[in-house]
Protein backbone atom coordinates (compact mmCIF):
# COMPACT_ATOMS: atom_id res chain seq x y z
CA UNK A 1 0.00 0.00 0.00
CA UNK A 2 1.00 3.56 -0.55
CA UNK A 3 1.77 6.12 2.12
CA UNK A 4 -1.52 7.96 1.52
CA UNK A 5 -3.48 4.73 2.08
CA UNK A 6 -1.73 4.13 5.42
CA UNK A 7 -2.37 7.76 6.31
CA UNK A 8 -6.09 7.22 5.64
CA UNK A 9 -6.09 4.18 7.96
CA UNK A 10 -4.34 6.10 10.71
CA UNK A 11 -6.58 9.15 10.30
CA UNK A 12 -9.68 7.04 10.90
CA UNK A 13 -8.13 5.03 13.69
CA UNK A 14 -9.63 7.74 15.91
CA UNK A 15 -12.89 8.38 14.08
CA UNK A 16 -14.45 10.92 16.45
CA UNK A 17 -11.30 12.99 16.54
CA UNK A 18 -10.96 12.90 12.76
CA UNK A 19 -14.63 13.71 12.19
CA UNK A 20 -14.53 16.68 14.58
CA UNK A 21 -11.44 18.07 12.90
CA UNK A 22 -12.95 17.67 9.46
CA UNK A 23 -16.11 19.37 10.74
CA UNK A 24 -14.25 22.26 12.35
CA UNK A 25 -12.06 22.91 9.35
CA UNK A 26 -15.04 22.34 7.05
CA UNK A 27 -17.05 25.00 8.89
CA UNK A 28 -14.31 27.56 8.38
CA UNK A 29 -13.97 26.65 4.74
CA UNK A 30 -17.75 26.62 4.37
CA UNK A 31 -17.85 30.22 5.59
CA UNK A 32 -15.20 31.20 3.10
CA UNK A 33 -17.04 29.36 0.31
CA UNK A 34 -20.22 31.18 1.32
CA UNK A 35 -18.51 34.58 1.23
CA UNK A 36 -16.94 33.85 -2.15
CA UNK A 37 -20.23 32.60 -3.58
CA UNK A 38 -22.31 35.48 -2.29
CA UNK A 39 -19.76 38.02 -3.50
CA UNK A 40 -19.58 36.34 -6.87
CA UNK A 41 -23.31 35.97 -7.31
CA UNK A 42 -24.08 39.52 -6.24
CA UNK A 43 -21.47 41.06 -8.52
CA UNK A 44 -22.63 38.86 -11.40
CA UNK A 45 -26.22 39.97 -10.81
CA UNK A 46 -25.18 43.61 -10.67
CA UNK A 47 -23.09 43.31 -13.81
CA UNK A 48 -25.87 41.55 -15.66
CA UNK A 49 -28.77 43.78 -14.63
CA UNK A 50 -26.93 47.08 -14.76
CA UNK A 51 -25.29 46.49 -18.13
CA UNK A 52 -26.00 49.25 -20.61
CA UNK A 53 -27.79 51.47 -18.07
CA UNK A 54 -25.83 54.67 -17.59
CA UNK A 55 -28.30 56.65 -15.55
CA UNK A 56 -31.54 56.08 -13.68
CA UNK A 57 -33.90 59.01 -13.32
CA UNK A 58 -36.73 59.01 -10.82
CA UNK A 59 -38.27 60.86 -7.89
CA UNK A 60 -35.96 62.60 -5.46
CA UNK A 61 -34.89 60.50 -2.52
CA UNK A 62 -32.19 57.96 -1.98
CA UNK A 63 -30.25 57.37 -5.18
CA UNK A 64 -29.39 53.86 -4.09
CA UNK A 65 -33.04 53.11 -3.45
CA UNK A 66 -33.77 54.33 -6.96
CA UNK A 67 -31.27 51.89 -8.43
CA UNK A 68 -32.34 48.98 -6.23
CA UNK A 69 -36.04 49.52 -6.97
CA UNK A 70 -35.83 50.44 -10.63
CA UNK A 71 -33.06 48.24 -11.94
CA UNK A 72 -32.69 45.30 -9.57
CA UNK A 73 -36.32 45.36 -8.39
CA UNK A 74 -35.44 44.56 -4.78
CA UNK A 75 -36.65 47.76 -3.08
CA UNK A 76 -39.60 50.11 -3.20
CA UNK A 77 -39.30 53.15 -5.48
CA UNK A 78 -38.77 56.69 -4.23
CA UNK A 79 -41.98 57.90 -5.85
CA UNK A 80 -43.19 58.89 -9.31
CA UNK A 81 -42.09 61.56 -11.79
CA UNK A 82 -44.16 63.41 -14.40
CA UNK A 83 -44.33 61.70 -17.77
CA UNK A 84 -43.80 65.04 -19.48
CA UNK A 85 -40.52 65.62 -17.68
CA UNK A 86 -39.32 62.18 -18.74
CA UNK A 87 -40.43 62.73 -22.33
CA UNK A 88 -38.56 66.04 -22.36
CA UNK A 89 -35.47 64.30 -21.07
CA UNK A 90 -35.75 61.70 -23.82
CA UNK A 91 -35.32 64.48 -26.34
CA UNK A 92 -32.10 65.70 -24.70
CA UNK A 93 -29.28 65.38 -27.24
CA UNK A 94 -27.09 63.63 -24.67
CA UNK A 95 -29.57 60.78 -24.28
CA UNK A 96 -29.23 57.82 -26.63
CA UNK A 97 -32.19 55.82 -25.32
CA UNK A 98 -34.71 56.00 -22.53
CA UNK A 99 -36.85 53.17 -21.17
CA UNK A 100 -39.76 54.18 -18.91
CA UNK A 101 -40.56 52.00 -15.93
CA UNK A 102 -43.88 52.18 -14.09
CA UNK A 103 -44.32 50.22 -10.89
CA UNK A 104 -47.17 49.93 -8.46
CA UNK A 105 -48.85 46.55 -8.80
CA UNK A 106 -47.99 42.91 -8.42
CA UNK A 107 -49.41 39.49 -9.06
CA UNK A 108 -48.62 37.02 -6.32
CA UNK A 109 -45.58 39.10 -5.30
CA UNK A 110 -44.17 39.28 -8.83
CA UNK A 111 -43.94 42.90 -9.94
CA UNK A 112 -46.05 44.13 -12.85
CA UNK A 113 -43.81 46.55 -14.73
CA UNK A 114 -45.24 49.05 -17.21
CA UNK A 115 -42.59 49.75 -19.79
CA UNK A 116 -41.81 49.74 -23.51
CA UNK A 117 -40.70 46.76 -25.66
CA UNK A 118 -37.22 48.34 -25.61
CA UNK A 119 -36.92 47.02 -22.03
CA UNK A 120 -37.03 43.45 -23.37
CA UNK A 121 -34.54 44.08 -26.15
CA UNK A 122 -32.21 45.91 -23.73
CA UNK A 123 -31.51 42.61 -21.94
CA UNK A 124 -31.42 40.63 -25.18
CA UNK A 125 -34.35 38.53 -24.03
CA UNK A 126 -36.39 36.55 -26.53
CA UNK A 127 -39.92 35.26 -26.50
CA UNK A 128 -40.27 31.54 -25.86
CA UNK A 129 -43.98 31.63 -26.60
CA UNK A 130 -46.44 34.18 -27.96
CA UNK A 131 -45.61 37.75 -28.78
CA UNK A 132 -44.99 41.12 -27.19
CA UNK A 133 -47.97 43.20 -26.10
CA UNK A 134 -49.67 45.23 -28.76
CA UNK A 135 -52.19 47.03 -26.56
CA UNK A 136 -52.73 47.82 -22.87
CA UNK A 137 -53.66 45.02 -20.44
CA UNK A 138 -51.62 42.46 -22.31
CA UNK A 139 -48.61 41.03 -20.47
CA UNK A 140 -45.43 39.16 -21.22
CA UNK A 141 -44.25 36.92 -18.38
CA UNK A 142 -40.67 36.44 -17.34
CA UNK A 143 -39.51 32.82 -17.48
CA UNK A 144 -39.36 32.37 -13.69
CA UNK A 145 -42.79 33.93 -13.20
CA UNK A 146 -44.35 31.66 -15.84
CA UNK A 147 -42.70 28.60 -14.30
CA UNK A 148 -43.66 29.41 -10.70
CA UNK A 149 -47.21 30.57 -11.39
CA UNK A 150 -47.94 28.05 -14.13
CA UNK A 151 -49.62 30.69 -16.31
CA UNK A 152 -50.18 29.90 -19.98
CA UNK A 153 -50.82 32.05 -23.02
CA UNK A 154 -54.35 33.43 -23.10
CA UNK A 155 -54.86 33.11 -19.33
CA UNK A 156 -56.12 36.15 -17.46
CA UNK A 157 -55.34 37.45 -14.01
CA UNK A 158 -55.86 40.59 -11.99
CA UNK A 159 -53.05 42.50 -10.38
CA UNK A 160 -52.99 43.68 -6.77
CA UNK A 161 -51.99 47.10 -5.59
CA UNK A 162 -48.53 47.42 -4.11
CA UNK A 163 -45.26 45.67 -4.75
CA UNK A 164 -45.67 42.80 -2.28
CA UNK A 165 -48.49 40.30 -2.17
CA UNK A 166 -51.85 40.93 -0.48
CA UNK A 167 -52.82 44.40 -1.80
CA UNK A 168 -56.19 45.49 -3.12
CA UNK A 169 -57.06 43.56 -6.31
CA UNK A 170 -57.77 45.58 -9.44
CA UNK A 171 -60.65 43.29 -10.34
CA UNK A 172 -62.05 45.46 -13.12
CA UNK A 173 -58.94 45.32 -15.23
CA UNK A 174 -57.63 41.80 -15.77
CA UNK A 175 -54.43 41.23 -17.68
CA UNK A 176 -54.10 38.69 -20.47
CA UNK A 177 -50.95 36.68 -21.02
CA UNK A 178 -49.80 37.15 -24.64
CA UNK A 179 -46.17 36.13 -24.38
CA UNK A 180 -43.66 34.24 -22.22
CA UNK A 181 -39.97 35.08 -22.28
CA UNK A 182 -37.23 32.53 -22.59
CA UNK A 183 -34.90 32.51 -19.54
CA UNK A 184 -32.48 35.40 -19.90
CA UNK A 185 -30.66 35.10 -16.57
CA UNK A 186 -31.55 38.73 -15.97
CA UNK A 187 -34.00 40.62 -13.83
CA UNK A 188 -36.65 40.16 -16.56
CA UNK A 189 -37.05 36.50 -15.55
CA UNK A 190 -38.99 37.48 -12.44
CA UNK A 191 -41.06 40.38 -13.83
CA UNK A 192 -44.44 40.67 -15.47
CA UNK A 193 -44.06 43.14 -18.32
CA UNK A 194 -46.82 45.20 -19.87
CA UNK A 195 -47.32 48.47 -21.65
CA UNK A 196 -46.92 51.61 -19.54
CA UNK A 197 -50.46 52.49 -20.53
CA UNK A 198 -51.74 49.40 -18.68
CA UNK A 199 -50.54 50.82 -15.37
CA UNK A 200 -52.18 54.15 -16.10
CA UNK A 201 -55.43 52.48 -17.10
CA UNK A 202 -55.62 50.31 -13.99
CA UNK A 203 -54.99 53.18 -11.63
CA UNK A 204 -57.05 55.80 -13.46
CA UNK A 205 -60.01 53.44 -13.61
CA UNK A 206 -59.54 52.75 -9.92
CA UNK A 207 -59.29 56.37 -8.73
CA UNK A 208 -61.11 58.55 -11.32
CA UNK A 209 -64.60 59.58 -10.30
CA UNK A 210 -65.74 60.97 -13.68
CA UNK A 211 -64.53 61.76 -17.19
CA UNK A 212 -63.23 65.19 -16.21
CA UNK A 213 -61.22 63.61 -13.48
CA UNK A 214 -59.95 61.04 -15.97
CA UNK A 215 -58.92 63.83 -18.38
CA UNK A 216 -56.96 65.60 -15.65
CA UNK A 217 -55.22 62.36 -14.74
CA UNK A 218 -54.36 61.70 -18.36
CA UNK A 219 -52.77 65.11 -18.52
CA UNK A 220 -50.78 64.51 -15.36
CA UNK A 221 -49.60 61.00 -16.06
CA UNK A 222 -46.50 59.76 -14.31
CA UNK A 223 -43.94 57.02 -14.55
CA UNK A 224 -41.88 55.68 -11.68
CA UNK A 225 -38.50 56.10 -13.27
CA UNK A 226 -36.57 55.89 -16.49
CA UNK A 227 -33.45 53.99 -17.52
CA UNK A 228 -31.12 56.02 -19.71
CA UNK A 229 -28.08 55.36 -21.81
CA UNK A 230 -25.75 58.15 -22.87
CA UNK A 231 -25.13 59.13 -26.42
CA UNK A 232 -21.63 60.29 -25.52
CA UNK A 233 -19.34 59.66 -22.53
CA UNK A 234 -19.34 63.40 -21.91
CA UNK A 235 -22.97 63.06 -20.84
CA UNK A 236 -21.76 61.38 -17.66
CA UNK A 237 -20.36 64.73 -16.56
CA UNK A 238 -23.23 67.03 -17.41
CA UNK A 239 -26.47 65.06 -17.59
CA UNK A 240 -26.75 63.93 -13.94
CA UNK A 241 -25.96 67.46 -12.79
CA UNK A 242 -28.54 68.88 -15.19
CA UNK A 243 -31.25 66.49 -13.97
CA UNK A 244 -30.48 67.04 -10.31
CA UNK A 245 -30.34 70.83 -10.49
CA UNK A 246 -32.74 71.76 -13.26
CA UNK A 247 -35.61 69.31 -12.91
CA UNK A 248 -37.78 67.96 -10.12
CA UNK A 249 -36.22 64.57 -10.73
CA UNK A 250 -33.20 62.82 -9.34
CA UNK A 251 -30.48 61.14 -11.41
CA UNK A 252 -28.52 58.23 -10.03
CA UNK A 253 -25.55 56.58 -11.73
CA UNK A 254 -25.78 52.80 -11.18
CA UNK A 255 -22.02 52.32 -11.33
CA UNK A 256 -21.49 54.85 -8.54
CA UNK A 257 -24.31 53.62 -6.33
CA UNK A 258 -23.47 49.96 -6.72
CA UNK A 259 -19.85 50.60 -5.91
CA UNK A 260 -21.08 52.43 -2.78
CA UNK A 261 -23.33 49.48 -1.98
CA UNK A 262 -20.54 46.99 -2.49
CA UNK A 263 -18.34 49.08 -0.23
CA UNK A 264 -21.00 48.95 2.48
CA UNK A 265 -21.47 45.23 1.93
CA UNK A 266 -17.70 44.98 2.02
CA UNK A 267 -17.67 46.34 5.58
CA UNK A 268 -20.05 43.57 6.54
CA UNK A 269 -18.09 40.93 4.71
CA UNK A 270 -14.90 42.18 6.37
CA UNK A 271 -16.43 41.30 9.73
CA UNK A 272 -17.49 37.90 8.37
CA UNK A 273 -14.05 37.43 6.88
CA UNK A 274 -12.41 38.21 10.23
CA UNK A 275 -14.75 35.76 11.90
CA UNK A 276 -13.88 33.16 9.29
CA UNK A 277 -10.19 33.80 9.83
CA UNK A 278 -10.68 33.12 13.55
CA UNK A 279 -12.60 29.97 12.68
CA UNK A 280 -9.84 28.82 10.36
CA UNK A 281 -7.20 29.60 12.92
CA UNK A 282 -9.14 27.56 15.46
CA UNK A 283 -9.43 24.74 12.94
CA UNK A 284 -5.70 24.92 12.20
CA UNK A 285 -4.99 24.76 15.91
CA UNK A 286 -7.35 21.84 16.26
CA UNK A 287 -5.69 19.98 13.38
CA UNK A 288 -2.33 20.73 14.95
CA UNK A 289 -3.45 19.44 18.35
CA UNK A 290 -4.98 16.34 16.75
CA UNK A 291 -1.85 15.53 14.79
CA UNK A 292 0.40 16.38 17.69
CA UNK A 293 -1.52 14.18 20.12
CA UNK A 294 -1.66 11.49 17.46
CA UNK A 295 2.10 11.80 17.13
CA UNK A 296 2.52 11.53 20.89
CA UNK A 297 0.26 8.50 21.06
CA UNK A 298 1.95 6.82 18.13
CA UNK A 299 5.52 7.85 18.82
CA UNK A 300 6.45 4.32 19.77
CA UNK A 301 4.61 2.89 16.74
CA UNK A 302 6.48 5.32 14.52
CA UNK A 303 9.75 4.40 16.20
CA UNK A 304 8.98 0.77 15.46
CA UNK A 305 8.48 1.66 11.81
CA UNK A 306 11.92 3.29 11.89
CA UNK A 307 13.23 0.08 13.37
CA UNK A 308 11.62 -1.79 10.49
CA UNK A 309 13.52 0.37 8.02
CA UNK A 310 11.26 3.37 7.43
CA UNK A 311 13.22 6.55 6.78
CA UNK A 312 12.47 9.69 8.82
CA UNK A 313 11.15 11.29 5.62
CA UNK A 314 8.70 8.42 5.20
CA UNK A 315 7.31 8.95 8.68
CA UNK A 316 7.04 12.70 8.12
CA UNK A 317 5.26 12.01 4.83
CA UNK A 318 2.82 9.76 6.69
CA UNK A 319 1.85 12.62 9.02
CA UNK A 320 1.66 15.10 6.14
CA UNK A 321 -0.59 12.73 4.20
CA UNK A 322 -2.89 12.51 7.19
CA UNK A 323 -3.08 16.28 7.21
CA UNK A 324 -3.72 16.30 3.46
CA UNK A 325 -6.61 13.89 3.94
CA UNK A 326 -8.03 16.18 6.60
CA UNK A 327 -7.66 19.14 4.27
CA UNK A 328 -9.22 17.31 1.35
CA UNK A 329 -12.21 16.05 3.32
CA UNK A 330 -12.68 19.44 4.93
CA UNK A 331 -12.54 21.08 1.48
CA UNK A 332 -15.32 18.86 0.20
CA UNK A 333 -17.37 19.48 3.31
CA UNK A 334 -16.65 23.22 3.19
CA UNK A 335 -17.66 23.52 -0.45
CA UNK A 336 -20.86 21.60 0.20
CA UNK A 337 -21.64 23.66 3.30
CA UNK A 338 -20.89 26.95 1.51
CA UNK A 339 -23.15 26.06 -1.40
CA UNK A 340 -25.80 24.98 1.09
CA UNK A 341 -25.49 28.21 3.11
CA UNK A 342 -25.79 30.33 -0.06
CA UNK A 343 -28.81 28.39 -1.29
CA UNK A 344 -30.41 28.53 2.15
CA UNK A 345 -29.83 32.28 2.41
CA UNK A 346 -31.30 32.79 -1.07
CA UNK A 347 -34.32 30.77 -0.04
CA UNK A 348 -34.63 32.46 3.34
CA UNK A 349 -34.45 35.96 1.91
CA UNK A 350 -36.66 34.88 -0.97
CA UNK A 351 -34.15 36.45 -3.26
CA UNK A 352 -33.65 33.31 -5.25
CA UNK A 353 -36.23 34.42 -7.77
CA UNK A 354 -34.28 37.66 -8.17
CA UNK A 355 -31.26 35.56 -9.15
CA UNK A 356 -29.13 37.63 -6.80
CA UNK A 357 -28.47 34.53 -4.71
CA UNK A 358 -29.25 31.05 -5.67
CA UNK A 359 -28.15 27.47 -5.81
CA UNK A 360 -25.02 25.89 -7.13
CA UNK A 361 -22.42 27.99 -8.85
CA UNK A 362 -18.74 27.34 -9.28
CA UNK A 363 -16.85 30.58 -9.71
CA UNK A 364 -13.12 30.23 -10.32
CA UNK A 365 -12.45 31.87 -6.95
CA UNK A 366 -13.60 28.67 -5.23
CA UNK A 367 -10.23 27.16 -6.08
CA UNK A 368 -9.03 29.10 -3.04
CA UNK A 369 -11.04 26.84 -0.75
CA UNK A 370 -9.06 23.61 -1.30
CA UNK A 371 -5.88 25.66 -1.60
CA UNK A 372 -6.54 27.25 1.78
CA UNK A 373 -7.56 23.90 3.27
CA UNK A 374 -4.33 22.29 2.16
CA UNK A 375 -2.29 25.26 3.34
CA UNK A 376 -3.96 25.24 6.76
CA UNK A 377 -3.72 21.48 7.23
CA UNK A 378 -0.16 21.26 5.96
CA UNK A 379 0.84 24.30 8.04
CA UNK A 380 -0.68 22.67 11.10
CA UNK A 381 1.09 19.40 10.28
CA UNK A 382 4.57 20.86 9.91
CA UNK A 383 5.59 20.56 13.55
CA UNK A 384 4.05 17.11 14.04
CA UNK A 385 5.72 15.98 10.82
CA UNK A 386 9.02 17.31 12.11
CA UNK A 387 8.34 15.43 15.33
CA UNK A 388 7.75 12.25 13.32
CA UNK A 389 10.94 12.93 11.37
CA UNK A 390 12.91 13.17 14.59
CA UNK A 391 11.21 10.33 16.42
CA UNK A 392 13.70 8.55 18.64
CA UNK A 393 13.93 4.80 18.22
CA UNK A 394 15.89 4.57 21.41
CA UNK A 395 12.78 5.84 23.16
CA UNK A 396 10.96 2.80 21.82
CA UNK A 397 13.73 0.50 22.86
CA UNK A 398 13.67 1.93 26.36
CA UNK A 399 9.88 1.75 26.68
CA UNK A 400 9.00 -0.88 29.21
Amino acid at each position, binding site marked *: *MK*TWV*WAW*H*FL*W*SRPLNAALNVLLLGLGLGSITFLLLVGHQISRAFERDLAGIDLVVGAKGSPMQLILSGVLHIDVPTGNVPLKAVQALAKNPLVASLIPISLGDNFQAYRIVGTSPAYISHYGATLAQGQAWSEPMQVVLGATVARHLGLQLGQRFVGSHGLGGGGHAHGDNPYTVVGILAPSASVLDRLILTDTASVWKVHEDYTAVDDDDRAVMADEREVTLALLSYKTPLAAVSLPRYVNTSTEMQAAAPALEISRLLHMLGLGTDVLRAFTAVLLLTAALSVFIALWSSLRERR*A*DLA*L*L*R*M*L*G*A*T*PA*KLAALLLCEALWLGLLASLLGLALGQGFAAALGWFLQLDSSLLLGGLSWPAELVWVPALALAVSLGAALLPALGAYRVS*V*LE*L*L*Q*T*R
Partner: protein
Amino acid sequence: MIRSQGLSYRYPQGPALNFPDVEVAQGAVLLLSGPSGCGKSTWLALAAGLMAPSAGALAVAGRSLNAIKSVAADAWRARAIGYLPQKLHLSAALTVQQNLAMAQWAGGQPEDRTRIGAALQALGVQALAQRKPGQLSGGQAQRVALARAVLLQPQVLLADEPTASLDDEAAADAVGLLLHTAGQHGATLVIATHDARVAQLIPAGVDGKNGFQSLRLLHRRLLIDEHADGVGKPAHEGGTP
Protein backbone atom coordinates in the same frame (compact mmCIF):
# COMPACT_ATOMS: atom_id res chain seq x y z
CA MET B 1 27.34 -12.46 12.25
CA ILE B 2 28.01 -9.84 14.87
CA ARG B 3 31.46 -8.65 15.84
CA SER B 4 32.38 -5.80 18.18
CA GLN B 5 35.69 -4.64 19.57
CA GLY B 6 36.22 -1.88 22.13
CA LEU B 7 32.64 -0.78 21.57
CA SER B 8 31.60 2.30 23.50
CA TYR B 9 28.81 4.83 23.40
CA ARG B 10 28.64 8.14 25.20
CA TYR B 11 25.34 9.98 25.67
CA PRO B 12 25.64 13.76 25.51
CA GLN B 13 24.81 14.28 29.19
CA GLY B 14 25.99 10.99 30.62
CA PRO B 15 28.91 8.69 31.19
CA ALA B 16 30.26 6.41 28.50
CA LEU B 17 28.92 2.90 28.23
CA ASN B 18 31.73 0.51 27.43
CA PHE B 19 30.65 -2.83 26.08
CA PRO B 20 32.53 -6.13 26.16
CA ASP B 21 33.87 -7.45 22.89
CA VAL B 22 31.71 -10.02 21.21
CA GLU B 23 31.82 -12.27 18.17
CA VAL B 24 28.69 -14.21 17.29
CA ALA B 25 28.49 -16.49 14.26
CA GLN B 26 25.61 -16.38 11.78
CA GLY B 27 22.74 -18.46 13.12
CA ALA B 28 24.05 -18.36 16.71
CA VAL B 29 22.28 -17.05 19.79
CA LEU B 30 23.43 -14.14 21.92
CA LEU B 31 21.86 -13.56 25.30
CA LEU B 32 22.26 -9.97 26.41
CA SER B 33 21.39 -9.84 30.07
CA GLY B 34 21.61 -7.39 32.91
CA PRO B 35 19.45 -5.15 35.06
CA SER B 36 17.34 -2.32 33.70
CA GLY B 37 19.42 0.69 32.64
CA CYS B 38 22.62 -1.30 32.16
CA GLY B 39 22.82 -0.49 28.44
CA LYS B 40 20.97 -3.35 26.73
CA SER B 41 18.82 -0.98 24.71
CA THR B 42 21.85 1.07 23.75
CA TRP B 43 23.60 -2.06 22.57
CA LEU B 44 20.50 -3.04 20.52
CA ALA B 45 20.31 0.47 19.01
CA LEU B 46 23.99 0.26 18.05
CA ALA B 47 23.52 -3.20 16.55
CA ALA B 48 20.50 -1.97 14.59
CA GLY B 49 22.51 0.91 13.11
CA LEU B 50 20.30 3.50 14.76
CA MET B 51 23.28 5.34 16.14
CA ALA B 52 26.97 5.23 15.57
CA PRO B 53 29.38 4.01 18.26
CA SER B 54 31.40 6.70 20.03
CA ALA B 55 34.41 4.43 19.91
CA GLY B 56 35.38 0.92 18.89
CA ALA B 57 34.32 -1.22 15.95
CA LEU B 58 30.98 -2.87 15.30
CA ALA B 59 30.00 -5.04 12.34
CA VAL B 60 26.57 -6.66 12.02
CA ALA B 61 25.41 -8.93 9.20
CA GLY B 62 28.59 -8.24 7.30
CA ARG B 63 28.31 -4.47 7.48
CA SER B 64 30.48 -2.12 9.49
CA LEU B 65 28.24 0.24 11.41
CA ASN B 66 30.94 2.67 12.43
CA ALA B 67 30.45 5.15 9.63
CA ILE B 68 27.19 4.10 8.07
CA LYS B 69 25.05 7.00 6.79
CA SER B 70 21.53 7.40 8.12
CA VAL B 71 19.68 6.64 4.86
CA ALA B 72 21.92 3.68 4.10
CA ALA B 73 21.41 2.45 7.66
CA ASP B 74 17.63 2.54 7.22
CA ALA B 75 17.81 0.51 4.02
CA TRP B 76 20.29 -1.91 5.55
CA ARG B 77 18.21 -2.33 8.71
CA ALA B 78 15.10 -3.13 6.65
CA ARG B 79 16.98 -5.97 4.97
CA ALA B 80 19.20 -7.22 7.75
CA ILE B 81 17.45 -6.67 11.08
CA GLY B 82 14.26 -8.10 12.47
CA TYR B 83 13.00 -6.64 15.71
CA LEU B 84 10.62 -7.95 18.34
CA PRO B 85 9.93 -5.22 20.90
CA GLN B 86 8.78 -5.88 24.43
CA LYS B 87 5.64 -3.82 23.83
CA LEU B 88 4.55 -5.31 20.56
CA HIS B 89 3.31 -2.05 18.95
CA LEU B 90 0.85 -3.70 16.63
CA SER B 91 -1.24 -0.88 15.23
CA ALA B 92 -4.73 -1.22 16.69
CA ALA B 93 -6.29 0.46 13.63
CA LEU B 94 -4.96 -2.18 11.25
CA THR B 95 -5.68 -5.87 10.80
CA VAL B 96 -2.96 -8.44 11.43
CA GLN B 97 -2.36 -8.66 7.69
CA GLN B 98 -2.16 -4.88 7.37
CA ASN B 99 0.28 -4.71 10.28
CA LEU B 100 2.59 -6.99 8.34
CA ALA B 101 1.97 -5.12 5.10
CA MET B 102 2.96 -1.95 6.91
CA ALA B 103 6.27 -3.59 7.82
CA GLN B 104 6.82 -4.23 4.12
CA TRP B 105 5.98 -0.60 3.40
CA ALA B 106 8.39 0.56 6.11
CA GLY B 107 11.11 -1.62 4.64
CA GLY B 108 10.52 -0.19 1.19
CA GLN B 109 9.10 -3.45 -0.16
CA PRO B 110 5.97 -3.82 -2.26
CA GLU B 111 3.04 -5.45 -0.48
CA ASP B 112 3.34 -9.21 -0.89
CA ARG B 113 0.32 -11.00 0.55
CA THR B 114 1.67 -14.44 -0.27
CA ARG B 115 4.74 -13.77 1.83
CA ILE B 116 2.63 -12.33 4.62
CA GLY B 117 0.43 -15.42 4.54
CA ALA B 118 3.48 -17.68 4.67
CA ALA B 119 4.97 -15.77 7.61
CA LEU B 120 1.69 -15.99 9.53
CA GLN B 121 1.30 -19.65 8.66
CA ALA B 122 4.80 -20.47 9.87
CA LEU B 123 3.79 -19.09 13.25
CA GLY B 124 0.36 -20.72 13.24
CA VAL B 125 -1.64 -17.51 13.14
CA GLN B 126 -2.74 -17.36 9.51
CA ALA B 127 -6.39 -17.72 10.55
CA LEU B 128 -6.07 -14.43 12.44
CA ALA B 129 -5.01 -12.41 9.39
CA GLN B 130 -8.15 -10.31 9.27
CA ARG B 131 -8.43 -9.71 13.00
CA LYS B 132 -7.48 -6.50 14.74
CA PRO B 133 -4.76 -6.71 17.43
CA GLY B 134 -7.37 -6.00 20.09
CA GLN B 135 -9.00 -9.33 19.24
CA LEU B 136 -5.83 -11.33 19.87
CA SER B 137 -4.59 -13.02 23.02
CA GLY B 138 -1.18 -12.05 24.34
CA GLY B 139 0.45 -15.16 22.87
CA GLN B 140 -1.23 -14.67 19.50
CA ALA B 141 -0.14 -11.05 19.41
CA GLN B 142 3.45 -12.04 20.15
CA ARG B 143 3.38 -14.56 17.31
CA VAL B 144 2.05 -11.89 14.95
CA ALA B 145 4.78 -9.48 16.06
CA LEU B 146 7.35 -12.22 15.51
CA ALA B 147 5.93 -12.89 12.03
CA ARG B 148 6.35 -9.18 11.34
CA ALA B 149 9.94 -9.27 12.63
CA VAL B 150 11.01 -12.07 10.30
CA LEU B 151 8.83 -11.06 7.34
CA LEU B 152 11.69 -9.49 5.41
CA GLN B 153 14.03 -12.47 6.07
CA PRO B 154 16.46 -10.67 8.40
CA GLN B 155 19.95 -11.98 9.11
CA VAL B 156 19.75 -10.82 12.71
CA LEU B 157 16.69 -11.03 14.92
CA LEU B 158 16.69 -8.70 17.94
CA ALA B 159 14.25 -9.62 20.69
CA ASP B 160 13.82 -7.12 23.48
CA GLU B 161 12.59 -8.57 26.79
CA PRO B 162 10.48 -11.24 25.09
CA THR B 163 9.53 -12.92 28.39
CA ALA B 164 8.70 -9.88 30.48
CA SER B 165 5.38 -10.26 32.32
CA LEU B 166 5.00 -13.87 31.19
CA ASP B 167 4.53 -16.78 33.51
CA ASP B 168 7.03 -19.63 33.35
CA GLU B 169 5.11 -21.68 30.83
CA ALA B 170 4.46 -18.75 28.51
CA ALA B 171 8.08 -17.62 28.86
CA ALA B 172 9.27 -21.06 27.82
CA ASP B 173 6.93 -20.97 24.83
CA ALA B 174 8.15 -17.53 23.83
CA VAL B 175 11.83 -18.46 23.97
CA GLY B 176 11.16 -21.75 22.17
CA LEU B 177 9.29 -19.89 19.44
CA LEU B 178 12.12 -17.38 19.04
CA LEU B 179 14.74 -20.09 18.77
CA HIS B 180 12.61 -22.04 16.32
CA THR B 181 11.80 -19.04 14.13
CA ALA B 182 15.37 -17.72 14.10
CA GLY B 183 16.58 -21.24 13.30
CA GLN B 184 14.10 -21.52 10.42
CA HIS B 185 15.45 -18.32 8.89
CA GLY B 186 19.08 -19.01 9.76
CA ALA B 187 19.10 -15.69 11.60
CA THR B 188 21.38 -14.73 14.42
CA LEU B 189 19.19 -14.30 17.48
CA VAL B 190 19.92 -11.63 20.09
CA ILE B 191 17.75 -11.73 23.18
CA ALA B 192 18.08 -8.71 25.45
CA THR B 193 16.59 -9.45 28.83
CA HIS B 194 16.84 -8.87 32.53
CA ASP B 195 14.89 -12.11 33.09
CA ALA B 196 17.17 -14.69 34.67
CA ARG B 197 14.89 -17.51 33.50
CA VAL B 198 15.83 -16.99 29.84
CA ALA B 199 19.34 -18.45 30.18
CA GLN B 200 17.85 -21.62 31.58
CA LEU B 201 15.19 -21.74 28.86
CA ILE B 202 17.76 -21.98 26.10
CA PRO B 203 18.34 -25.72 25.64
CA ALA B 204 21.83 -27.02 26.13
CA GLY B 205 21.91 -28.27 22.57
CA VAL B 206 21.73 -24.74 21.27
CA ASP B 207 24.84 -23.86 23.22
CA GLY B 208 26.86 -26.64 21.67
CA LYS B 209 25.46 -26.44 18.18
CA ASN B 210 25.25 -22.74 17.43
CA GLY B 211 27.65 -21.22 19.84
CA PHE B 212 25.27 -19.73 22.41
CA GLN B 213 26.83 -16.77 24.15
CA SER B 214 25.74 -14.98 27.25
CA LEU B 215 26.84 -11.39 27.53
CA ARG B 216 26.20 -9.95 30.94
CA LEU B 217 26.10 -6.17 31.29
CA LEU B 218 26.30 -4.59 34.72
CA HIS B 219 24.32 -1.63 35.90
CA ARG B 220 25.61 1.79 34.86
CA ARG B 221 25.36 3.00 38.44
CA LEU B 222 28.00 0.48 39.33
CA LEU B 223 30.38 2.26 37.01
CA ILE B 224 29.80 5.57 38.77
CA ASP B 225 30.10 3.97 42.17
CA GLU B 226 33.28 2.21 41.18
CA HIS B 227 34.76 5.42 39.83
CA ALA B 228 33.76 7.20 43.01
CA ASP B 229 35.45 4.51 45.03
CA GLY B 230 38.46 4.65 42.79
CA VAL B 231 38.22 0.95 42.11
CA GLY B 232 38.79 1.50 38.39
CA LYS B 233 37.25 -1.73 37.21
CA PRO B 234 35.90 -1.94 33.63
CA ALA B 235 32.45 -0.45 33.26
CA HIS B 236 30.86 -3.75 32.31
CA GLU B 237 31.88 -7.25 32.63
CA GLY B 238 31.55 -9.48 29.67
CA GLY B 239 30.29 -13.00 30.03
CA THR B 240 32.19 -15.74 28.41
CA PRO B 241 31.05 -17.96 25.59
